[in-house]
């Protein structure tokens, strides 16, 4: 470790590849994830879930379960007070708690297979499982609807009798499964399409895919007799968990302390609550700690995948390749409750391009599936898959190189985005150039091999963020952040702190604080944790430097403006006599008590100015014409990071996003039977890419600094999943001449398409 750091100038860690501070614990098995926490006297909680996709719950009889020796508590809908239908800010997020309480525990109806109906806590997992079998639930089974288009039909089974489409005038007088219509417009598309020489119009269909984190949801709750509680859980945002749970259980926020465990993957799926309120409710009843862990089947059936969707795209261009008008209509599945990511889907659809006339309409549609949760750039991969496929087709029609066509229409600084703002400096053109310059772009291809390129956009967000820096007696620094570290955050923040304070990286020890230790901090999501966290650390460091300068001025009997902080030391500005020896942080630490007490800084900000990150991906693949099997041969991902604090973890984001996108494009999907039940709720038949499915994934870290961040940083975590879907589809077209518009492009679909065209021969 020290060897690696020695290579670098101690005054500048940002941009280097340090070893993560939490690394050793993670390679030795010591790191504690959600299911690794235990308490004396703890009970095991299990959930009874609806076997029906849609059913009215007539009655729930838990008496036999409660009578089973070893069962200490049973909770049902009766243990959770109803919530009014109002959208309440939970952190920066708005949620309708009426839906949240119903998703956590079914009330009037079970709305999807796996919807929680009751939960038990017992002295052993075996007893808890037996108790579930003793709970008698009377259902009135109702007709169900799974498909988004069917759910939109007037005659479709209605999930919520009180759901009226928002965003349409006049307000509809009849309830439906369409929760919301959204729209953005820029210019006049009719005029724009009139100017077009070529117009491509197509419909696309995607299936819901799961975030696929390897660590199942887990929670350990302990409620004491005075109603105060502690909760350990695996989450992307323990302050959000606290907000939701306090609300659902009617607790004072200060009485609930939530500690985020190490998190075994989230990708957006661990931004909501499932087990946490149940564990708290069970513990409150049993007055004993309750531990709950989902099985993999429960994760697939009951935690949020992202939307499947149907997307229409219409794009017009002049002969010389200038886009004149763009239209899209997006129909996104929300699952059992409203709130699909259709709005960001609408806003991102054409964001990579500078187009005068744009109109995008979106529909948020409920159906009898688990409520969708965020998944990496929520909504964007779906709409941009459709748009980037059509851009590719347009390039072929116009006989223009697909990178050149994108370049010609690329958004850049000053471009007015269809969703409102003017872009600052962004890296669309830079990533296109980076890809075009690769040897990969011009490498030869054989028969049945194809090459595809596609770009992607994601906004990124900032938001409320706290971080503290405490100077310890020996001059070392303790760093506390409030966003769970999913992929190297602690390393990035420690590097920034070390650079700000001019001390060695390994003298900074970062941890993730619990909800009692820092002010409200929004979750790890929206590609915000490194962006916002580093801004908060810079603010905290500034406070320390100011404080040290003030103390030095007093010690030296000089004016504060006579001293300055530089490279880890406080110096007297014009110290000709050299009688004031520069003081290090360690010097101050030793005499902290004598000079006014402990030294520390506390950054509390609402980070603004998150810069969008654009990326362009390039993929080669080969199709087996006789079986429809697709092999990914080569992959290059270029993306604008603004400034890469830790290049390895930035590259890791590009590679991980690409792999997830490849899975989404080729094999991953939720498969439902006619009975409305999920048929592939496990890693065996929900086919995420394995090591032998992928090649090395080359990365190009483009750096177009974000002027609103002290180090120029942009979030990078989400954009990488946006380009792969279309890149793979475009490569499929190049390999077979067939434009695939439905995901996943699984072997049966591919072989069918080849057969229909008589191409299924070597």
């Amino acid at each position, binding site marked *: 470790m020290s060897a690696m750091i020695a290579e670098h100038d101690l005054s500048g860690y940002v941009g280097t590849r340090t070893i993560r501070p939490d690394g050793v614990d993670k390679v030795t098995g010591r790191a504690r*994830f959600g299911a690794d926490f235990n308490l004396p006297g703890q009970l095991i909680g299990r959930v009874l879930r609806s076997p029906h996709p849609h059913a009215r719950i007539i009655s729930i009889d838990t008496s036999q379960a409660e009578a089973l020796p070893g069962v200490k508590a049973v909770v049902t809908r009766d243990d959770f007070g109803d919530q009014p239908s109002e959208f309440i800010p939970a952190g920066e997020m708005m949620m309708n708690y009426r839906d949240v309480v119903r998703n956590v525990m079914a009330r009037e109806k079970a709305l999807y297979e796996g919807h929680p109906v009751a939960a038990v806590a017992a002295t052993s997992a075996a007893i808890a499982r037996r108790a579930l079998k003793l709970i008698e639930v009377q259902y009135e089974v109702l007709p169900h609807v799974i498909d988004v288009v069917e759910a939109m039909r007037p005659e479709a089974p209605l999930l919520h009798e009180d759901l009226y489409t928002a965003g349409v005038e006049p307000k509809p007088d009849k309830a439906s499964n369409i929760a919301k219509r959204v729209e953005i417009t820029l210019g006049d598309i009719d005029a724009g399409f009139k100017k077009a020489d070529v117009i491509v119009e197509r419909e696309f269909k995607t299936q819901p895919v799961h975030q696929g984190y390897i*660590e199942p949801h887990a929670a350990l709750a302990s409620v004491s007799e005075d109603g105060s509680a502690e909760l350990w859980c695996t989450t992307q945002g323990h302050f959000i968990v606290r907000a939701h749970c306090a609300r659902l259980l009617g607790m004072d926020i200060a009485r609930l302390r939530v500690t985020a465990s190490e998190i075994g993957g989230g990708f957006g799926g661990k931004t909501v609550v499932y087990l946490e309120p149940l564990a708290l409710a069970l513990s409150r009843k049993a007055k004993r700690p309750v531990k709950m862990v989902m*099985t993999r089947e429960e994760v697939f059936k009951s935690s949020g995948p992202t939307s499947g969707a149907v997307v229409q795209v219409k794009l017009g261009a002049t002969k010389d390749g200038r886009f004149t008008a763009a239209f899209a209509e997006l129909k996104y599945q929300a699952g059992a409750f409203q709130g699909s990511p259709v709005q960001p889907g609408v806003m991102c659809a054409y964001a990579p391009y500078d187009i005068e006339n744009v109109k995008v309409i979106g529909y948020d549609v409920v159906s009898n599936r688990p409520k969708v949760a965020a998944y990496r750039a929520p909504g964007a991969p779906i709409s941009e898959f459709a748009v980037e496929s059509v851009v590719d087709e347009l390039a072929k029609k116009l006989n223009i190189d697909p990178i050149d066509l994108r370049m010609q229409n690329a958004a850049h600084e000053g471009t007015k985005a269809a969703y409102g703002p003017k872009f600052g400096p962004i890296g669309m053109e830079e990533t296109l150039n980076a890809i075009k310059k690769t040897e990969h772009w011009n490498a030869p291809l054989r028969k049945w091999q194809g090459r595809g390129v596609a770009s992607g956009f994601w906004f990124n967000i900032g938001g409320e963020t706290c971080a503290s820096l405490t100077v310890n007696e020996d001059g070392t620094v303790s760093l506390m952040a409030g966003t769970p570290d999913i992929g190297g955050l602690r390393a990035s923040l420690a590097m920034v702190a070390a650079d700000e304070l001019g001390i060695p990286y390994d003298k900074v020890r970062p941890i993730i604080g619990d909800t009692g230790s820092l002010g409200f901090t929004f979750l790890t999501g929206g590609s915000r944790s490194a962006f916002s966290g580093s801004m908060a650390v810079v603010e905290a460091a500034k406070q320390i430097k100011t404080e040290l300068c003030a103390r030095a001025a007093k010690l030296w009997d000089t004016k504060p403006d006579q001293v300055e902080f530089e490279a880890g030391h406080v110096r007297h500005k014009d110290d000709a006599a050299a009688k004031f020896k520069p003081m290090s942080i360690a010097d101050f630490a030793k005499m902290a008590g004598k000079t006014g007490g402990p030294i520390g800084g506390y950054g509390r900000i609402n980070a603004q100015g998150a810069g969008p990150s654009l990326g362009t991906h390039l993929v080669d693949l080969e199709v087996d014409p006789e079986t429809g099997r697709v092999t990914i041969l080569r992959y290059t991902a270029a993306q604008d990071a603004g400034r890469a604090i*830790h290049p*390895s973890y930035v590259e*890791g984001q590009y590679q991980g996003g690409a792999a997830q996108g490849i899975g989404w494009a080729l094999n991953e999907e939720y498969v439902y039977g006619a009975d409305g039940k999920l048929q592939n709720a496990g890693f065996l038949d929900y086919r995420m890419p394995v*090591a032998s499915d992928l090649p090395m994934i080359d990365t190009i870290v483009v750096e177009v600094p974000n002027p609103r961040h002290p180090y120029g940083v942009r979030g990078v975590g989400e954009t990488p999943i946006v380009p792969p879907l279309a890149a793979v589809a475009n490569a499929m077209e190049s390999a077979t001449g067939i434009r695939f518009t439905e995901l996943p492009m699984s072997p049966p679909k591919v072989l069918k398409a080849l057969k229909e065209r008589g191409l299924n021969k070597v």
Partner: protein
Amino acid sequence: MAKHHITATVNGDDVEFLCETEETLLDVLRDTLHLTGSKEGCGSGDCGACSVTLDGRLVCSCLVLGCEIGGRRIETIESMAKGDTLHPLQQKFLEHAALQCGICTPGFLVASKALLERKAAPTETEVRYWLAGNLCRCTGYDKIVSAVLDAAAEMRKG
């Protein structure tokens, strides 16, 4: 039915425990012996996060019954570092940033160690196929495969 009384060797230590027939080796490791480095990602042998070696043979501990291991030798992630010294694989995983969230890391390390004990100089393809039973959702496998190849090279240098 009385519990089974089992004695076995785990990470070089003699251990003695009681377990029900349906308890898996993974349950025993995590809940009875408190060795939580082996993770449960699926419970069906599809993710490899619970990988351990049983008499030197790589297995998913979620697919072995606790009552099957009487008199056998089990090695888990907890025994991979020796004293203060990380195994070369552990060191290379850190240097290559071969982990993001880290939940799959113990399984990958145990599986990779088993590979390098059988094959000192595996090709990239051999590494990828050997590790196909270990799911990682974060990294796209790139840095994991690089770390294993690099560790192999270093171990060959001795």
